[in-house]
């Protein structure tokens, strides 16, 4: 603050490194195109015109995990799909975040049986859980904003 009083008109701003990096990561987070079931429709609705997710920097949904940093798991995960999901998660480069969208990805939803993984956190660590069956696009946007708050709060120690 002292430096801005002296050099304010020169156009120099000071900011902590953590704040700068987290701000950059938040506003350019590219989700991976990973819609599995019904929640994928709501994710597509969230990407479409009315509940626009590109205002958060998520204009593109990359189909390849190598170029994305957010994985929105929308839909139920079967036991046959679980190793594939883990493989895709491992292929994403750091830093990466996971949003578990909907009830089936968070806890198995209404499918409490042999074929569905009861909660995708049996396979990978999840940052934000969005509840709903399916969650409205506004709920997904709220989940994304919660993730943004979490990313803003990251420090150098969490990066390491």
């Amino acid at each position, binding site marked *: 603050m002292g430096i801005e009083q002296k050099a304010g008109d020169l156009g120099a701003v000071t900011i902590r490194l953590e704040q700068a990096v987290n701000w950059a990561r938040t506003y350019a987070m590219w989700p991976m195109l990973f819609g599995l079931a019904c929640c994928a429709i709501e994710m597509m609705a969230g990407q479409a015109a009315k509940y626009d997710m590109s205002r958060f920097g998520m204009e593109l949904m990359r189909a390849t995990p190598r170029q994305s940093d957010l994985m929105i798991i929308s839909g139920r995960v079967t*036991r*046959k799909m679980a190793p594939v999901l883990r493989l895709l998660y491992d292929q994403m480069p750091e830093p990466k975040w996971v949003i578990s969208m909907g009830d089936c990805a968070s806890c*198995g939803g209404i499918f*409490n*049986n*042999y*074929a569905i993984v*009861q*909660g995708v*956190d*049996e*396979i*990978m*660590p999840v940052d934000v859980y969005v509840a709903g069956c399916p969650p409205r696009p506004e709920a997904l946007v709220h989940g994304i904003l919660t993730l943004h708050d979490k990313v803003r709060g990251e420090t150098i120690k969490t990066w390491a």
Partner: protein
Amino acid sequence: MNEELQTAISALEEKFSIEKEEFRGEVSLIISSDELWQICQVLREIYDFKFLEVLTAVDYWPEQDPRFHVVYKLYSIEKNLRIGLRVPVSGIEPSLPTLVGLFQNANWREREIWDMFGIRIDGHPDPRRILMPHDWQGHPLRKDYPLGYEEVQFSFNAEEIDQDKPYAEE
């Protein structure tokens, strides 16, 4: 019942041993697994039932023996007629001949029958599991297969169940 369907069924009744059931306009013939392929061939070649609509199985354990009924429904597109076939299959080493030579779409349905019920299909070109992972043990749609559900966490048992639940760490 439709006349053409009746002629087809009468011709089949002369050559093979079948029982007939009719319910609200739908005919179902109970046949044995030895004559299945010939009956399907007769229906397909001579009576124009060229489309296999349904190929599934039902498990009637423990009420009925033989335990499985494999259900086939053939449809004739030109004549708009449907006919159903039921094959009782026992639970001890169940096996059936394949219909892939006659109806191409029987391929995946027979794989599903093997995966879900354990009924072997002899002569199938690609006998592997289709819905469950390839190394799964057991056949899920049998009546003596456990439901495989997880206990629901309420507030009073949440921590106990949480300790045994597998969570991934990175």
